[in-house]
Each structure stands twice: as structure tokens, then as C-alpha cells.
């Protein structure tokens, strides 16, 4: 069998080509990209269907209306005068915004722009039910605010430790109250200590190579503090001075990707200000990095901010992207572990970052990287999706967990807190004991010569052993 596997693929037995274009680099596109010309953006779709197989909801249900091509058709119907009906909104809401279709589209349809504009319109014009409104408000008043999340940590830890968690889950009371609430509860990772990071971490191991700003995020900071600590250490060990501005808050990713554009703009302005002093901003959460690279278009119509926003987008880097550009200096120590690398959508489809994390992992001695099948299909996390669309998200999570288990890896590596929570929850549901870690944590372990067991025996990134 091995010999057969080594045979070169005939191209006709090949995976189809992907354009591998990040969603944000449409600089060469004609400037009908502005939202005013929505209709022209719709025209780019030639209805070829190449987007269908990578669309998570099409994979689940096989229905045209729940595919990118079908949603574009619905947008067109609305553009031509059909009212924003409940079925339409339902199909737009079901879109994960994973942007796999942007990668697979040969015609260059900017679906990312189309769905963002559409979501904003839904938010403006579509009245939601009181229950739906309440849960949405709760989410958007909680997650983008690290301090509020922080306040939640104490009660949440107590809840997890006292056995109340088990009791509530067995009772199914949350399911009955609200499936979204139940989904949130299930996704919360086991919480450990949360070390506070100083405002400045000095470069180590020789001459300083760069000064970088670091975004700490909201969920990342409060639920996965170990990931931020590892990121700062890795950057410092690679010779970077790390600046962690206190004034930073939420980057606005959740709001931006949910059609709450004004809210997103406010978050964006604050983030621009907080990081104006540094030349590079390193981001370790895929969704955040993706949103920050979008600031340029988000604030394009704001004369006071357009230039500053564009500057911020230009200097934003995902951690893996930055480390590969920088090149390795610190010695890697062996880490005998088999990992499966998961492509976060906002990293692969959103930022075109696929090879860099794999290269960083593969460069660690004795570490084996395995590929997960259907890497371009979303795990179902998708920002707030697993809260607002819990059933579809759980199904996608189960599929992803199944694909991860097939690799027989000991450790799943992902670079987005949402994905980590989502896949860890699905793996747990299937009774699989695969630990989850962030790329930064794996690199940190290698640079500091920590044993692989430190990564293996854990339930989730930054979490306690479970």
C-alpha cells in the first residue's frame, strides 16, 4: 500500500486547483468593491457551482439555498425587489462566513464583501424575535469585553469544580431554555490560572531583531491565557521586544462578521489607536487577525480614519506568518509528538496563511505533522455561529472531530480560540482523548525544551488536564 501511495497522482485523479487567494487581497480588482456597487459584485458570480463542495452548509444539507451560489441568488432576488423574507434571512444566518467559497471561486467573487453587506442589511431591516434579540445582545455585550469575560471566570470555575456543571448538563435544563445558551455552556473550556502579561516583554538570546505589538484578544486572553503567554515567550526567544498595550480592547471581529458594522468600526478605531506606535502587530487568533486586515475596507469611507486604518491593516501579521518572515534563530529542541494541524478558516481562507504554521511545526525535530482530510471545510465554530446555530455547528464539529481522529494524532494544533473550543468540545462528545494546543504553545514547548507530555495530557489550550 505504501508503494502505491508514493505513486505520483495523475492530474485527473488530482484535487482540483484552488486559487489560494486570501479574501483581502483584491487590490487588483476593479474598485466596484465599494459597497455601493453591490450589484456589480453579484454579477461576478457565473453560477458554476465550484463553491458548493467546500461550503459547510451545502456539505451538510445538499440544498441550493444553503450554498454560496444559492445565497448569492437570494441576494440577487432581494436586489431586484424581493423583500427580505424570513426564509432569506434564515439562509443568510446559516452562512458560517468561513470564506471557503472565496478560496474555491475561480471567478473571483468577493463573497466576503457580499455577505458582510447583506448581514448589515439584515441587522438594520429584519426584526428578530425577542428571544433571538436577547441572546444576541447578551453575546455582543459579553464576548467583546475582556473585563466582563474576566468577571465571568470566577463563577465559571466554581461551576466547573463544584459538580454543578455535571448536574446542569445531565438535567438538560439549558437545552430547554435556549439551545444557544446550552451551546455556550458546553463550549466553555476548563479554566486554569490566568497569568497577567506585562506591558513589555524584552527580547532574549542576543541582539534584538524587531519590536512587535501583540494583540491579546478577548476570548484568547480570558479563556486561553496560556496561549498569550506562550506567544509572548516565543516572540521574545526569537529576539523580539514584545509590546502589549494596556489600552487595547476587542478588535471588533465578532461584530464585523455579524453585520454590526458601527460597533465594529468603534472597536477598530480604538485598536488602531492602541497600536499606532508599533511597526508590526502580531495576532495569534485567526478571527482577530483577519478582521484587522479588513480595517482598511471597514473604515475606507471615514476620512479621519481611512489612512490610519489602512496602515494598521498593512502591519498586521498572524503569528505564524510573522515568524516565517522573521526566520528562526532560537534553537528548536526535539518534541516527539504526532500532531494534526487544523486550518482555521480566518487564517486559511481569510488570510491565505496555510503553509507557514505547517512549516513552523515541521521544523521541530521529532515532531510529525499529519493532514486532516477536507481541511478547507469549517469546524463549525465560525465566531458566534456555534452559539446562534448550535445544531449545524455541532454536526460540523462532529465531522471535523471524526476527521481529526482518523489521523491518529496525539495533539490537535489550531490557531484560533473558537476552533479550539469547538473541536475540543466535539472530541469530548465522542469520548476521544486528543489534546488541543495552539501553534504558539507547541513552539514554546520546543524552544524551552519542555517534554511533549506537557502538551499531550491536556483537554484544551491553556486549560488544565482533564
Amino acid at each position, binding site marked *: *500500500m505504501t508503494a502505491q501511495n508514493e505513486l*505520483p497522482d*495523475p492530474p485527473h*485523479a488530482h*484535487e482540483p486547483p484552488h*486559487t489560494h487567494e486570501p479574501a483581502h487581497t483584491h487590490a487588483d480588482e476593479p474598485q466596484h468593491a465599494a459597497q455601493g456597487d453591490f450589484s456589480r459584485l453579484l454579477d461576478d458570480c457565473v453560477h458554476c*457551482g465550484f463553491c458548493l463542495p467546500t461550503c459547510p452548509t451545502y456539505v451538510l444539507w445538499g440544498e441550493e*439555498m444553503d450554498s454560496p451560489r444559492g445565497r448569492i441568488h437570494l441576494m440577487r432576488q432581494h436586489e431586484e425587489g424581493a423583500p427580505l423574507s424570513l426564509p432569506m434571512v434564515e439562509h443568510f444566518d446559516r452562512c458560517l462566513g468561513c470564506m471557503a467559497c472565496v478560496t474555491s471561486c475561480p471567478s*473571483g467573487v468577493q463573497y466576503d464583501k457580499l455577505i458582510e453587506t447583506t448581514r448589515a442589511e439584515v441587522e438594520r431591516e429584519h426584526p428578530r424575535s425577542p428571544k433571538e434579540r436577547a441572546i444576541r445582545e447578551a453575546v455582543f455585550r459579553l464576548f467583546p469585553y475582556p473585563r466582563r469575560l474576566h468577571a465571568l471566570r470566577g463563577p465559571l470555575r466554581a461551576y466547573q469544580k463544584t459538580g454543578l456543571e455535571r448536574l446542569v448538563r445531565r438535567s438538560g435544563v439549558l437545552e430547554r431554555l435556549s439551545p444557544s445558551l446550552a451551546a455556550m455552556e458546553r463550549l466553555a473550556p476548563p479554566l486554569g490560572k490566568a497569568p497577567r502579561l506585562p506591558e513589555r516583554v524584552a527580547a532574549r538570546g542576543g541582539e534584538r531583531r524587531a519590536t512587535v505589538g501583540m494583540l491579546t484578544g478577548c476570548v484568547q486572553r480570558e479563556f486561553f491565557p496560556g496561549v498569550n503567554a506562550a506567544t509572548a515567550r516565543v516572540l521574545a526567544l526569537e529576539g523580539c521586544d514584545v509590546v502589549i498595550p494596556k489600552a487595547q480592547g476587542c478588535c471588533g471581529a465578532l461584530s464585523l462578521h455579524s453585520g454590526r458594522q458601527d460597533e465594529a468600526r468603534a472597536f477598530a478605531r480604538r485598536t488602531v489607536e492602541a497600536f499606532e506606535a508599533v511597526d508590526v502587530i502580531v495576532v495569534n487568533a485567526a478571527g482577530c487577525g483577519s478582521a484587522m486586515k479588513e480595517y482598511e475596507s471597514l473604515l475606507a469611507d471615514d476620512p479621519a480614519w481611512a489612512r490610519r486604518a489602512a496602515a494598521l491593516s498593512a502591519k498586521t501579521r498572524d503569528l505564524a506568518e510573522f515568524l516565517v518572515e522573521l526566520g528562526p534563530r532560537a534553537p528548536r529542541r526535539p518534541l516527539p509528538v504526532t500532531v494534526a494541524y487544523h486550518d482555521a478558516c480566518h487564517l486559511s481562507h481569510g488570510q491565505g496563511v496555510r503553509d507557514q504554521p505547517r512549516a513552523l511545526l515541521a521544523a521541530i525535530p521529532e515532531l510529525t505533522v499529519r493532514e486532516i482530510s477536507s481541511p478547507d471545510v469549517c469546524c463549525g465554530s465560525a465566531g458566534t455561529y456555534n452559539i446562534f446555530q448550535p445544531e449545524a455547528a455541532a454536526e460540523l464539529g462532529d465531522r471535523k472531530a471524526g476527521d481529526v481522529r482518523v489521523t491518529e494524532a496525539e495533539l490537535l494544533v489550531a490557531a484560533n480560540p473558537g476552533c479550539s473550543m469547538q473541536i475540543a468540545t466535539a472530541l469530548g462528545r465522542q469520548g476521544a482523548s486528543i489534546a488541543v494546543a495552539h501553534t504558539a504553545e507547541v513552539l514554546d514547548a520546543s524552544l524551552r525544551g519542555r517534554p511533549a507530555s506537557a502538551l499531550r495530557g491536556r483537554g484544551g489550550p491553556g486549560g488544565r488536564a482533564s
Partner: protein
Amino acid sequence: MSEVLARLAERFARLLGPDSVITDPVRLRTYECDGLTNHRASPGLVVLPDTAEQIAEIVRACAAEGVPYVARGSGTGLSGGALPRTDGVLVVTARMRRVLDIDIPNRRAVVEPGVINLDVTRAVRPYGYYFAPDPSSQQICSVGGNVAENSGGAHCLKYGFTAHHVLACEVVTPDGELVELTADGPGYDLLGVFVGAEGTLGIATKITVRLTRVPETVQTLLAAFGSIEAGGTAVSEIIGAGVVPAAIEMMDALSIEAAEAAVRCEYPPGAGAVLIVELDGPRAEVGAQFAEVERLCRDAGAFEVRIAADDAERALIWKGRKSAFAAVGRISPAYLVQDGVIPRTSLPGVLASIDRLSAESGVRVANVFHAGDGNLHPLVLFDDAEPGAAERAEEVSGRILDLCIENGGSITGEHGVGVDKARYMPRMFTDTDLDTMQMVRCGFDPAGLCNPGKVFPTPRLCGEVPGVRKGPPPYEGKAELF
């Protein structure tokens, strides 16, 4: 919704569950066309069955009510073969995507009709096999659709069309019976009749496909020529030398420009045409022939020949070609994908005529073709916002088909006739030819409910005597039924 459709909707909801029946007009409209968007009709009803038995039940119900129905897979067809009927039912097989059996010793697999072409290959690839038919849409087109259209692809020059890779089909006949058609039994080759019938003879519910051994080696080159003519000469020389490449594909300057814009395939700049030649098979044979192909390309005037050193480089060469159709969307607001066949030797002449046609009409035409078997895919570009542009493009597109017929070719190589080319059928066939074909159709579907309005230019009643028609046709006024 008509009374009869409402009745059927209710019945199907009981049969399939309410989530598998679509009646909302906004949702229905998303099914109004397949990969060919210039023909649109919102279906009366959409059903998404899970099993063959359900399809049989649906067909029986339609037959009993006299309601037409159309089968649809992934909706990527390019001749409008899955164009719905506003007064009918659209049977979507997208949820029937199980690979039922993989039988490596007998080199076959059994799949449901909604299984995606490339997923067959993915399923058997670990055993060293693949599914040979490779339409450019293989990442999404369904095997059921491949059977209906007898789909080909870049590699059918050596490996043949879908018909050569289907060993049996379980089919729901238009009277709702579930039957098995096989290639190897005695008697008439009904499977041969069924494959490529464009969904007019029944709905395939289970397909047994042939699996092909992954060749020992594959070698691919990209040759850039100053002109299409030089590329055409190279093709003739290669085939004339007795080489049977797995594929020979040609693209002209305009389609190269589009592919470049879409996927940055980095073809040699300044090329008037590029030729992709791929050989596969035993290492020794491929090695010897590949050297000859390279020499023949250079002799014909190739100014650059690139040989793919590894899988990644080969994928890059193919990337431009495989995305070419959709990529044209980058250089034109709208376009028609044409599909015609000419004898290989007529290639330079016909291409020169297409150039003239394009110059005279001011309509740009990009050319992509399976050069090895003379299958042309002219892409006729137009701006749909400009009044009259679509009609002019349509006109040019039709004249290209005339050129194919004049040169002894055909109006379709692999996309099928569907609704789009039904009107060209009389240019290629006599009334007697068409009547004979209709009689075959009537043998399967006397009521004319199974994908009506496709393939044939004029509907006719079964039982009507073929031959010279005088006076008004006997079916006048009933045409909408057929």
C-alpha cells in the same frame, strides 16, 4: 402553486419529511438554472429524496398525475439539461451521496447518483485506483449528472467518456419501476442507450463504475507557441506519430489572460497559444514518448517548453486550464460556453474562421479546447448590461456551431444538447433521424414526462407516425404537456 402540485407537495412531505420538499417561491427560484444561466425556469416543486425507493415513489406519483419532472445533481451542467419545469417537479439527488461499495478485486465501485465525481477518486485512491472521467467541474459535478450527459474531460482522449466507465445502473423508469441496466448481459445494450440520454429516459439511482489503476508514472509539459496554428500543427504531429497522450489541451491568448487573472498560473508571457500535453502509463514507455513529444513541440515552433518536475508543478500547469471557464468571468461580465467538435485536421481552418467571425461581429471569443479529439470550447464574451449584446453573442455562438457542422463535426462534444442546443439538432440531423431518436425515447417514456423539452427541437406525441407531416401537427395545443 397549481392544485395538482400542492397535492403532490403534501404527498411528498409525508414520504420524505417536510425538510425535503421545497415550496417557498424564494427558495424555489434558487433552482431556476444549472451551470447555464441564460435559460431559467423556477421549478413548481423541489424534492430532495434520500433513497431509490423514494425516487420511484415520486416518479409514480408524477406519472399518475401527469406532471413532468426533471432530475438534477449538483446543477453544474452547461446545456441546461437540468432546467426545471415551472409546472413540474425537480428531483434533486444532492443528498444521495453515499459510496455504497468498493470492490477492488473486481475494480468497481457502486455509488449513489449524488456522489461527487472527485469523491469516487478520493474513496478509492488509497487502493491505487481512480475514476477516470474528469470533467473540469469534477470537484462538484455528480456521477448521476455524468451518466446523464455522458461527461468527458481532458483525459477522455485516452480513457474514454463516462459511458466507458459505467458498468451498470439502477434506474427508475418513467413508469416508476426500479430496474437494473447492465452492459454485459445478452440482448440490446440498454445501458448504452441510457448513458448520455440527458435524463430523458429515467433517473439513475445507483451507478456501478469502473475503477482505473493509477498509472505508474505521469509526465506533463506545457509548450508555448506564437500562434494557434503552430500549436495545432504540434497536435497533429504528436497524434500522427502514434502517441496517445492522456490529454492534449490548448488555450488561446484570451483564455490564458483570463486564467492568469484568476489563478496566476504563470504561463509563458506573450504566448499566442499554450499546449498542455500529458502522458501516463509505464515508466519506460512514457519516458521514450515524452522525449518525442517535446521534440515535436519544438519542431512545430514552441518557444518555451516547461516540464513539470513534481506534482506541485503539474498542478500549477493544470490549474490554469481547469479554471479557464469560470476564470473568463474575470475578463468579461458575461459569456457563453460553447461546445463543438471538428475533425482534428480542420483545427487551423476553423479557428481562423472563428477569428474572422469575431473580428466581423466585434464579439470577443476565447478558445479552450481538448485538442486531441477536436473538441472546441469557444467562450463567447459579452456585456449583459449592453442592449443587444447577448443576442449578438448568441448569434456568433450559433455560427460557430455551423462551422463545426460544415467541417464534418458535431454540435456538442461533451456538454450535451439540453435545451440550449435542441434548436441546432435539425442542422445536424434529418427529420427521419430525429423521429428515430424520438421513437427510442417513447419506448422508455411514452407519456413524455421525464425531462421533457430537452434534446429535441419539437415535441412530438408518441404513437404519431414518423415521416412527412402535413397540416397542423396533431398535438397542437398540447405542446406544453411535452
